[in-house]
């Protein structure tokens, strides 16, 4: 029984496990970049597969890829998008900084799976070649940053935005509930003049509303995609319509208003849009820290703290102090567990 097969690239041939879909370049990366255990996130691989699908469809529309190859690539890409081949992307973050090895990992897995769907033999590069077909009209240098923008945008809209709104709504409900409760204000941690607990919570709601606006403000930069720039931004080896058409196809596939970046040199050589977006996340982190710390301090006690809020007692709070955080009728001081998340 054969446990390995031969895969080849421009450096020659190399043994890979018979049952995997990746090829020579992935195998070499595993050998040369065995650094740490931080892997490419699944949502990033998913974004990459959406891009490969869109590229195959546009290549076909432009007369650059026959229908059968396009359909096999689309079918294989769909499997990656659905997470069916999740164990086929073993490469680490700490690889070549352009992400070439991950682009090739995606090309190799999609081509080998497409070959299998076509009735061919893995590693044969026939009838679907990882570079000439799956990577057609593309370079690592424009695909990787394009996948970065797709993954970042989806994460912001589908994960972060909905979570902020959920928290904002819950805090707004408390704001209304606490609207008539007059409490003492504190400045410099010292006693100050009164305000209502609802007013205090309205500040948290406003911070989160601002965080939502900040994220909305970073999205237009993330909608601009590098695809079509190929190796250095000039678009060598790609069709003049490829950049525009792939962005349009990606919009259709994702429901997000992606466009072709007007300047590909910046899109390959800089990541200012993501730096800006990370700034919005850092601002959100600062707001959450403020909100969670306030709630944590206001819930301090139960007998020796500020004790103005009663926090839910969710779990035992101490391995040595018996009964800590056990009573549901008094303030729990296990809150550190939760504010540490927030």
């Amino acid at each position, binding site marked *: 029984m054969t446990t390995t097969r031969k895969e080849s690239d421009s450096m020659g041939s190399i043994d890979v496990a018979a049952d995997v879909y990746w090829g020579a370049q992935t195998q070499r990366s595993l050998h040369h970049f065995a650094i740490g255990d931080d892997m490419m996130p699944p949502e990033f691989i998913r974004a990459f597969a959406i891009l490969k699908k869109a590229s195959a469809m546009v290549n076909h529309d432009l007369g650059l890829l026959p229908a059968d190859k396009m359909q096999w690539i689309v079918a294989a890409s769909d499997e990656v998008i659905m997470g069916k081949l999740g164990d086929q992307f073993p490469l680490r973050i700490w690889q070549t900084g352009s992400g070439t090895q991950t682009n090739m990992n995606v090309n190799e897995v999609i081509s080998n799976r497409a070959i299998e769907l076509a009735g061919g033999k893995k590693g044969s590069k026939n009838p679907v070649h990882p570079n000439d077909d799956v990577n057609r009209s593309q370079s690592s240098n424009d695909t990787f940053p394009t996948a970065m923008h797709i993954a970042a945008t989806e994460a912001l809209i589908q994960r972060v935005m*909905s979570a902020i709104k959920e928290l904002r709504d819950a805090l707004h409900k408390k704001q209304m*509930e606490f609207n008539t*409760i007059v*409490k003492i204000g504190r400045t410099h941690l010292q006693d100050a003049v009164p305000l209502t*607990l609802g007013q205090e919570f309205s500040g948290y709601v406003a911070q989160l509303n601002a965080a939502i606006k900040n994220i909305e403000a970073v999205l237009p930069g993330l909608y601009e995609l590098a695809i079509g720039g190929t190796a250095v931004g000039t678009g060598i080896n790609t069709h003049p319509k490829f950049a525009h058409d792939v962005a349009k196809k990606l919009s259709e596939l994702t429901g997000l208003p992606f466009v072709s970046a007007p300047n590909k*040199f910046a899109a390959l050589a800089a990541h200012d849009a993501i730096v800006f977006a990370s700034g919005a*996340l850092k601002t959100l982190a600062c707001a959450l820290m403020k909100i969670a710390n306030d709630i944590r301090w206001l819930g301090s006690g139960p007998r020796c703290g500020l004790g103005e*809020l009663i*926090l839910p007692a969710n779990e035992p709070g101490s391995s040595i102090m018996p009964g800590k955080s056990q009573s549901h009728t008094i303030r729990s001081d296990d809150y550190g567990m939760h504010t540490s998340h927030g």
Partner: protein
Amino acid sequence: MVCIQVMGNDAAIGFAGSQGNFELNVYKPVIIYNFLHSTDLLADAMHMFTAHCVRELIADEKQIRAHVDNSLMLVTALAPKIGYDKCAEIAHKAWHDGTNLLEATLALGYLTEKEFKELVRPETMTSPR
């Protein structure tokens, strides 16, 4: 902890974003890795915080009221009537004598009890008027 990790991720993204040379930035994997780490952590943490803390928060109105009543800074409400300096004197006297604001005000003879009680009403102090 999540917030601190996000701030650290942002620092890494900033360094990596500044390292483009000529036609390519070759710090791409570390950028997207840290970015998606931040989005994952923030989204999960907000869900947990909302579900397991914020929704179940209860105000301890008795304790809140006790803090309000015990505060010396309610004296601020007297400032438009008797001026900042006399108010400060009342607050300091109450603090040093271990008494409350009313007792200190009466001892200094700045207002009658009726005048004091008309002015020092916490519920009227939470908005401009």
